[in-house]
């Protein structure tokens, strides 16, 4: 069974029909993460030759270019991925550290505007 984490979606200030509006990211088989403006989740799932499946979580980041993801965020995320896989169905919410101290007008910078699955060379 897949294990997910949840990330807050931008432009969903009202609730969805069935609850708060979060995107889901499958973190099963994820072995590392990287990024500054967005976060790339690397899996060990094969794609084309020499590449693996990856999921990119794109933060709004002031319309692009703002490095909202810190090294501590990535470390927190690695720990959360391990926790999510230890506790199937827990589906924890991942929030960037900057969200906690952001001004109301800047909250959207720390929210997700796109989730894209593709292939990537492993790191």
């Amino acid at each position: 069974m897949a294990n997910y984490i949840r990330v807050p979606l931008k432009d969903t200030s009202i609730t969805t029909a069935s609850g708060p509006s979060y995107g889901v990211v499958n973190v099963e088989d994820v072995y590392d993460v990287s990024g500054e403006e967005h976060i790339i989740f690397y899996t060990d799932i094969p794609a084309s030759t020499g590449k693996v499946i990856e999921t990119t979580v794109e933060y709004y980041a002031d319309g692009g270019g703002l490095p909202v993801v810190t090294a501590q965020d990535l470390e927190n995320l690695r720990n959360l991925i391990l926790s999510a896989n230890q506790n199937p169905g827990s589906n924890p919410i991942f929030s960037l550290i900057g969200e906690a101290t952001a001004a109301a007008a800047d909250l959207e910078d720390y929210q997700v505007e796109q989730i894209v699955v593709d292939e990537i060379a492993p790191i």
Partner: protein
Amino acid sequence: MANYIKIPLAINPARSFNVGALNGTATGGGTVADGGGGASAAQPILGGSGSGATATVTKGGSAAIGDATITISNIGEGYKAGDEVTIAAYALGGATTWTAIINYTILAKDLVTSSGSSTNEYKMIPIDNVMGVQLASATSALIETNQWDAGAGAVLKWTVTMDDVPATTAEHLAGDLATAINKASQAENSQPTVEFLYDAECLSAVLS
């Protein structure tokens, strides 16, 4: 054991026409003449449950409307398969004319594709290989899997297509799908049904 979400498919939802020729056979219309040749000016499609659609008429091989081609110009909104609609008589010269009201019963294939029916109420989506939901638009979202399609050079994904009325947003559409995936993964075998904000209606969900 696979874990699922269920996407409710709208059953004959009110929707728009497809651009192009109608697929059924019209009746009435009196005598159809070429009036100088070519298609008539676009005329309002009246009646039924929708509004805003227009169509041109082009004379066929006889003076009967059944041989003519009726082509949608403006797709309108709110029509259903089975709606009985009309087009008023049209006598302006220089193009196809007809002397009486045209009657037509809308076929499902005249309208935007909707795969739901009384015997196909849900699309079952297995979520064990789902990686996330990609936002596309207010009428489309992609449920992306971790299954690589070498031929396409991309992951396999479910394209969820929504009717444009009632409208949702790209963000809420993705959020609603993600919420159901979240529920399903938290409660194995619960097989939750996706609940769409604003009562948005799903037309289809196709794996490609």
